């Protein structure tokens, strides 16, 4: 399997000049294409910081985040935005859809920023919404959808840009059991059938149960890294 994420000796210290908080203390990790991996750990273990650094939303104090051969810790803020647009899909805990756009427009939005043609945008948005089971909700705005449906739109949006991998930060935290299971079914299917790489940060036992690799963070260090067949 091709390696798509390589984390090398990653360190993140908040407030280095005042009361320093060591969120990550030299983490090393490699993620291959097609993985369905969960990063778990108690609150304050560094999960969110880790995910932010992988997603290029924050800069490390030291170490490297290499994605597809590019060290993103060396990129400028604007280069990072462009990199995220082209290479990373995001699913957030609170869905974070654009409230004034319909489901289809939310999915299309990412492709629009990638300057894709109208035809391609429309076809891909409809196909992705179909893939997450929302073909009947394409013209509904987020406020007209349930939490589970919104999160499925978020998954479709994350996949719209044809990213190298999808980062999902506590994707099931705001969902009821049925919606969470449904969402996990969809992501698992996309992973198995289309080889899309998913990396979760989660507390949810249901996600951990389905993950084929579980990385446990404790006090800013990897405490365990367990792969399941």
């Amino acid at each position, binding site marked *: 399997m091709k390696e798509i994420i390589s984390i090398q000796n990653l360190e993140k210290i908040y407030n280095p000049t005042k009361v320093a908080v060591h969120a990550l203390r030299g983490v090393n990790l490699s993620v291959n294409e097609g993985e369905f991996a969960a990063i778990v750990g108690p609150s304050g273990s560094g999960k*969110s910081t880790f995910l*932010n650094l992988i*997603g290029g*939303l*924050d800069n490390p104090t030291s170490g490297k985040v290499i994605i597809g051969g590019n060290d993103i810790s060396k990129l400028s*803020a*604007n280069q990072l*935005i*462009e990199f*995220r*647009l*082209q290479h990373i899909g*995001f699913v*957030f805990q*609170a869905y*974070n859809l*654009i*409230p*004034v*756009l319909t489901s289809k427009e939310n999915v299309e*939005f*990412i492709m*629009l*920023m*990638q300057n894709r043609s109208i035809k391609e945008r429309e076809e891909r948005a409809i196909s992705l919404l179909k893939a997450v089971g929302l073909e009947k909700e394409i013209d509904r705005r987020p406020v007209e959808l349930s939490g589970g449906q919104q999160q499925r739109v978020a998954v479709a*949006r994350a996949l719209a*840009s044809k990213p190298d991998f999808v980062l999902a*930060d506590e994707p099931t935290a705001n969902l009821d059991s049925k919606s969470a299971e449904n969402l996990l079914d969809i992501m698992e299917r996309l992973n198995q059938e289309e080889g899309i790489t998913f990396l979760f940060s989660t507390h949810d036992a249901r996600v951990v149960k389905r993950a084929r690799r579980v990385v446990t963070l404790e006090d800013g260090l990897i405490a365990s890294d367990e792969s399941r067949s």
Partner: protein
Amino acid sequence: MWTIAKIAWRNIWRNKLRSFAVFASVALGLWAGIFATSLANGLNEQRISNVIDNQLSHFQIHAPGFRDNFEINKVITNTESIQQKLDSNPKVKAYTTRTMVSGMVSSASSSKGVQIKGIIPENENAVVNLEKFMVEGEYFGKAGRTPSIILGKTLADKLNVKVRKKLILKFQDGNNEVIAAAFKVKGLYKTVDTRNDEMTVFIEQPKLNELLGFSDEVHEVAILLNDINNIETISPDLKAAFPNLLVESWKEVFPGLDTADQLQEQTSMLLLYIIMLALCFGILNTMLMVVLERVREFGMLMAVGMNKLKVFFMVMFETIFLMLTATPVGLAMAWLTVWYFSKFGLDFSGQSEGFESMGIDPIVYPVLTYDYYPKVIMLVVAAAILSAIYPAIRAVRLNPAESIRKL
């Protein structure tokens, strides 16, 4: 950019109540600013027009130095040749000659200092239409044994005289001899300029000239043009035609009036700037609230790949749309109000004394030229851009990682 604009447009309808409050403040601010400006324009134009129509005319000719201290001996002597030149000028509609002297008018009960103007009634009427302001008696007409005098209603009230009563005029002639003569009140006039009405009396020019020992000498020639807009073009011709006399347009005769006109124009624009500035702060506050309320959304947009320039423009567009949506409403309200009152007038009769003492009719007709509206629109756009800059900068400075987790 089209999608950014589309999102921005939809965003302004997310909080309808807040948007309505902004619309209302922009629309009312514009309406108030424009209407106040049109009212001030109307007042000013009426004042200028009253002074031109009732006193100054478009041009005046005097002997050099006469206007410095109204010396009786500084006269225009060659009136016949002046009249011939003016008669042959197609741009001149009418003209009149005046003999003027300062003196006292006395009734049985009191006396007042006045300026006595000796006029040719029909010529004067053609230039300032004094007859239309007659409120009692008649405008000269057939003279009796006692020569006629026309005076302002306010002056007549102060002198406690009525039509057909006698008055005595006293003044000095060119040799400093005091001259006194009796006149019968033929009529009373009332213009919108009560202060001037109180200071000016009219008698027939041949009589005044006779008392002053003049033959055809006069002190002033007042000229009315066919079109006020010809003033600048005709001015050099008139000045060249009468090289030994002082030919002045109304702006030169009464520079304060023109300065007041320009000052009023600037004051009106200043008023609009102040209203816009106040609106700017209101919009700035609203847009800051919008940005702070949507921190998570802006964070998400930047996280998924929307660059800072697009985020900046989204906030700018929202602000501009917010203001521009209200602008047509404000302009339409203002246009309607100006149109209505320019047709029917705005009646300030309750304060007529104050208005008339300033030479203004208490019924004011607002005036606004159409070139004012594009200026207002440009001002609104400028105000929108100005008030959007800071909130937009706040939005692009957000850290996506922190913003996404904001509750």
